[in-house]
């Protein structure tokens, strides 16, 4: 589903954020992307939704060569990829319902589809009862669920999450991770960049560790710190 071959990305200021990265992600898998701050996790995700192009190397998403993709084809790619961020990126003057519907409306969906898909997506994240509320009236966890509902409303094949629980307390973090797991079980490929060791260690999924823009480890059913396992877990 996702494939990076020899991907290098050097920012204009000379920082080499990714250095000869190879990565294969199978359809329907769940992958954690971990590593110290500044090791290139966000940068790697940006390459996948064509926020950036690699300096060299190949990026393939769902059989599309994203690194070579023409500008005019980017919207079609992005309708196939949901993206969720640490800061939710909800529109404060729109209700939850409107925020989720927005993603469909601006891609030209007709009203019938909006009316069918928005409730379905809100239902999936468990926010149907708060659909009329503004983001400011929601807890952090609820806001992130609204953002996930928006990311999923187009039925994307891939969900990319950049620090999705970075602003959340442990119980909200747990809820969000359970939600991501449920979404993955429905067939969506999920990539999560995170610093949260507890979450990674509890879930025991594939863990890709980046270090200075390179893939340091890549373990099936891995831990946040390779080999240390749950002894390192700080809190649950």
């Amino acid at each position, binding site marked *: 589903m996702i494939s990076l071959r020899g991907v290098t990305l050097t920012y204009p200021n000379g920082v080499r954020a990714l250095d000869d990265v190879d990565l294969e992600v199978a359809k329907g898998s769940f992958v954690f992307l971990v590593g110290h701050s500044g090791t290139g996790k966000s940068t790697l995700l940006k390459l996948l939704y064509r926020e950036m192009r690699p300096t060299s190397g190949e990026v393939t998403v769902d059989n599309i060569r994203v690194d070579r993709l023409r500008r005019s084809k980017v919207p079609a790619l992005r309708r196939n990829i949901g993206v969720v961020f640490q800061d939710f990126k909800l*529109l404060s003057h729109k209700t939850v319902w409107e925020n989720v519907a927005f993603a469909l409306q601006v891609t030209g969906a007709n009203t019938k589809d909006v009316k069918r898909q928005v409730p379905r997506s809100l239902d999936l994240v468990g926010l149907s009862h708060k659909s009329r509320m503004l983001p400011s009236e929601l807890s952090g966890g609820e806001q992130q669920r609204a953002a996930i509902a928006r990311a999923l409303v187009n039925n994307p094949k891939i969900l990319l999450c950049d620090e999705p629980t970075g602003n959340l307390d442990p119980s909200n973090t747990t809820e969000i991770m359970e939600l991501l797991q449920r979404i993955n079980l429905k067939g969506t490929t999920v990539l999560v960049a995170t610093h949260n060791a507890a979450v990674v260690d509890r879930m025991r999924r594939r863990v890709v560790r980046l270090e200075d823009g390179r893939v340091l480890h890549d373990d099936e059913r891995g831990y946040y710190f390779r080999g240390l396992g749950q002894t390192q877990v700080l809190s649950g």
Partner: protein
Amino acid sequence: MDWGKLKFFLGEVGSNFTRNAAMQLTAIGTVAVTVVLLGAFLYVRDTLASFGTGMLSKIEVAVYLNDDVDDARARTIAVRFAQDRRIWGATYVPKRDGLRRMKSVLGKDFDTSLLTANPFPNAFHVRVRRPGDVPAVAASIAKYPGVAKTDYAADTVTKLLRIADLLGRVGLIMIGLLVVTAAIIIANTIRLTVFARRREIAIMQLVGATNMYIRMPFIAEGLLAGLLGAGLALGILYIARLELVPKLAATIAFVPFHANEPLLAGECLAVGATVGFVASWFSVGRYLRV
């Protein structure tokens, strides 16, 4: 027709529009001023043009005969007029008629008691088919034996038309500058809206909205500002037309105030819409970087 889609789109345009209300009003006001001037200018130009051509078509060549030419010899000259195909017709104005005409034009201000003799020579008033031929016809008639001199008012009229033309050019340049100013103000307004909506735009790009879709509300916004400005201007022009033109027409009676008003209104609206559209198109393209 998907009304929900339309409602969403109009809602987006509306919220764009009201976000920078003060700036929008400035943009609308600038367009309005520009279009008022443009409309007034076009109206005056039309009036002058129809005045000028009207005058030209009425131009007669006055042909004054030598004192010794009597009515019989004058008739032989009239025969020559008939042979010139450029000439449409000629009226013979003998001495006595010339004096009478002058009296009737000037009325009682013209005191004939001071005249010891009739100063008017025998004359013809020659009408030419095409105004453009007036100078040539006048010149050739001047060479006829028995003709003292020819005269026509075309000089004044062509001068008037030339002045009108010059004024037209200057006016057009000024209006051009105003149009550019209006365009810059609209472009700036759109840029502010783009800035105010950068979060929405970022999300639209993230979820896969096309560039065209992202642009549309901003372009609609610019178009709306241009049309509202032009509409406002047309309102002002309409009132001015009702109030001012009858007064002017009464003061300067010889100028026929006249213009193709529906056409002018259409031109004004088109200018407003074009300014709004073009300015916002470039502004969004430049500041959106999509």
